[in-house]
């Protein structure tokens, strides 16, 4: 049971009255304004909308509306064969589709009892980390942009583009890579790829240093983001918060460390945590994780076996029947715990695939809770700082 938030300090009405129920949020009283932020709004990430009740400049009520991007993925996957689903799953999450590809492939492999070659594991880890890097770069631009700092967004999105170029070279796709398939990966690294990755990493590191200088040391950025959207430690479990949002509150949980998948147990890294749990700390945690990601990519390239198989021989995939069973696999994406719950019923089609995106709780329950009490100007910044992504919610 979560507490009635005592942090609401509306501008005009007496907050105490609101809390003990004497004052109700009644739009006819002319003390409140209802505005919609989204879906057609530059301050909303993705395509969703917030129904906000304002009292003065303070938000006193917030409802999220999702479903603008509902494509019925889970239904479509039930009508497609296992192998036909693999180009479909990556479309669930546009900024970092590789987590979908990996989790779907891994779930199918676990149910079918397939072992993948060692080198494929490293290549998978490489793409996952590169996806993390690209996603964080994009996010950083979004966070700065939501406070009006367009310059950072211009720089980071361009650097993300360099990472996308690497993806293009590796897989042929800029946004949707369809690189990780059940049984391994689709293609091996091109000749000289590691050097080109290193070039991009050097550029990204330089950029990160600049961002540290002009974003994290900027007094206006601090004034806007410090104290914004504080997630109390005690509601972390209540709201199912994972990823950097939880780590910024000082909770050291990272699936890469706790429950290592792929090759993460062979890599050297530590869990980044913060203290204050506000937007600034979350941005800082993500900035540090971006650096960590750069480091992890270097480690992966260095430790990866130089030769080897990249794909297990599969049976004829069009006649491929997966034995009945169910499993849930999870991975640490940029926003938190990404999971696939796959139920097989012994036919060539999955019985049920349920995608658990971290935004499911961050963008709905948590945002509704945190938006109440903030200034209307900060809602966009708050939403970005939770790193929500609507298509994970509605699929």
């Amino acid at each position, binding site marked *: 049971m979560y507490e009635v938030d005592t942090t609401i300090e509306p501008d005009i009405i007496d907050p105490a009255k609101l809390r003990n129920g004497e004052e109700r949020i009644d739009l006819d009283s002319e003390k409140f*304004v*209802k*505005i919609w*932020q989204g879906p057609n*709004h*530059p*301050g909303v990430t993705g395509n969703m909308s917030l129904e906000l009740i304002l009292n003065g*400049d303070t938000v006193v009520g917030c409802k999220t509306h999702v479903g603008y991007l509902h494509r019925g993925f889970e239904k479509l996957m039930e009508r497609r064969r296992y192998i036909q689903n693999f180009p479909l799953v990556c479309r669930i999450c546009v900024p970092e589709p590789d987590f979908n590809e990996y989790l779907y492939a891994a779930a199918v492999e676990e149910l079918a009892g397939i072992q993948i070659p060692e080198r494929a594991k490293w290549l998978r880890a490489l793409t996952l980390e590169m996806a993390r890097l690209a996603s964080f770069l994009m996010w950083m631009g979004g966070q*700065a*942009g*939501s*406070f*009006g*700092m*367009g*310059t950072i967004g*211009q*720089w980071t999105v*361009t650097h993300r583009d360099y990472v996308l170029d690497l993806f293009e070279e590796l897989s042929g796709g800029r946004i949707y890579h369809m690189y990780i398939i059940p049984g391994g990966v689709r293609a091996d690294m091109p000749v000289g790829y590691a050097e080109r990755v290193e070039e991009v990493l050097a550029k990204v590191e330089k950029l990160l240093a600049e961002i540290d200088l*002009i974003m994290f040391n*900027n007094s*206006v*950025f601090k*004034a*806007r983001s410090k104290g914004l959207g504080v997630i109390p430690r005690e509601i972390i479990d209540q709201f199912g918060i994972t990823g950097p949002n939880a780590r910024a509150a000082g909770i050291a949980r990272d699936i890469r460390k706790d429950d290592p998948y792929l090759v993460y147990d062979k890599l050297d890294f530590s869990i980044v945590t913060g203290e204050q749990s506000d937007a600034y700390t979350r941005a800082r945690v993500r900035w540090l994780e971006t650096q960590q990601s750069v480091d992890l990519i270097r480690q992966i390239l260095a430790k990866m076996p130089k030769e080897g198989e990249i794909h297990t021989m599969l049976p004829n995939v069009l006649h491929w029947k997966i034995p009945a069973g169910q499993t849930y696999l999870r991975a640490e994406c940029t926003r938190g715990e990404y999971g696939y719950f796959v139920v097989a019923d012994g036919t060539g089609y999955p019985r049920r695939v349920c995608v658990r995106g971290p935004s499911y709780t961050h963008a709905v329950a948590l945002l509704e809770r945190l938006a109440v009490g903030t*200034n*209307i*100007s*900060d*809602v*966009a*910044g708050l939403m970005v700082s939770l790193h929500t992504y609507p298509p994970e919610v509605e699929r």
Partner: protein
Amino acid sequence: MNPIVLQILFAAISLFVILNWGLILGGITARIQARVQGRIGIPVWQGYIDIIKNYFQRTSISHGIMFYLGPIFRVAGGVGTYMFIPAIFGSVLFSNFHFAGDVILVMYFVFFGQLGMALGAGESGHPYSAIGVSRGLAQMTAFEVPFALSVIALAAQYHTLSITDIVAAQQGGFVHWTLFTNPFAVIAGVISLLGMNMHNPFSVVIAPQEIPIGPPTEYHSSFLALLQTNRAIFNIAKLVLFMNLFFGGATTIWGMLIKTFSLYMVTIFVGVSFPRFRVDQSIRFFLRVPTVIGLAAVVFAILVF
């Protein structure tokens, strides 16, 4: 020719020059901003095309009479501001309708446009407009304080309320500029210029992310074109005013172009490197340090001159 007709003709010519300079300056600064961001940026003449396109939109929606009057007031504010500022010291063509108390009138005109806009935008009935208007007016009241203080300091320093006389007092080398004779007034004034220009960090009024895009949410087609035209004039009018008050005015057109350009670059450089304040934060900002500096300028002017 009747002198007043001639003066009107001259004022119209100077307004035309200023309009073009405003549009080109907008293009140039956008390109400079783009360079900082690693881009090429819009063509320098993009402002003209945008305005032409907007005048050529086929339909427009009205929300009542005040909605029409909003942009008209805004243009009246912009043109009025410029009309009473002598743009180039000693030039007949660019002297406009200057008179003995013009700095007071100009101060009024700087804010007149926003008030008119507030009425028009309120009429549109869009909640974003209303929020933008309340933000705009609140912030305007805040940056008016340091600006008014620095103007008072100048009046005390030069014992005049005429812009021409203030400029005249600053002639004879740059050490006579207010910048060097009363730096406090200049600092307070330039900070409030940042607020007036509505670039970062004081751009929350027209911010796209924090409720798009403030007062002009509902303005479109020719209304918007009118606002854009005004923006070009008003930007330069403000810059010319500040140039006259603090930076010794200009005696040639080239001096005017260079000084307004350099002054605008201050805004641009601050703009590209800062996020924006929330409106309450910007009010607090203006009422603290710049106001104290403005007071210091007044005290300084009274004590020294």
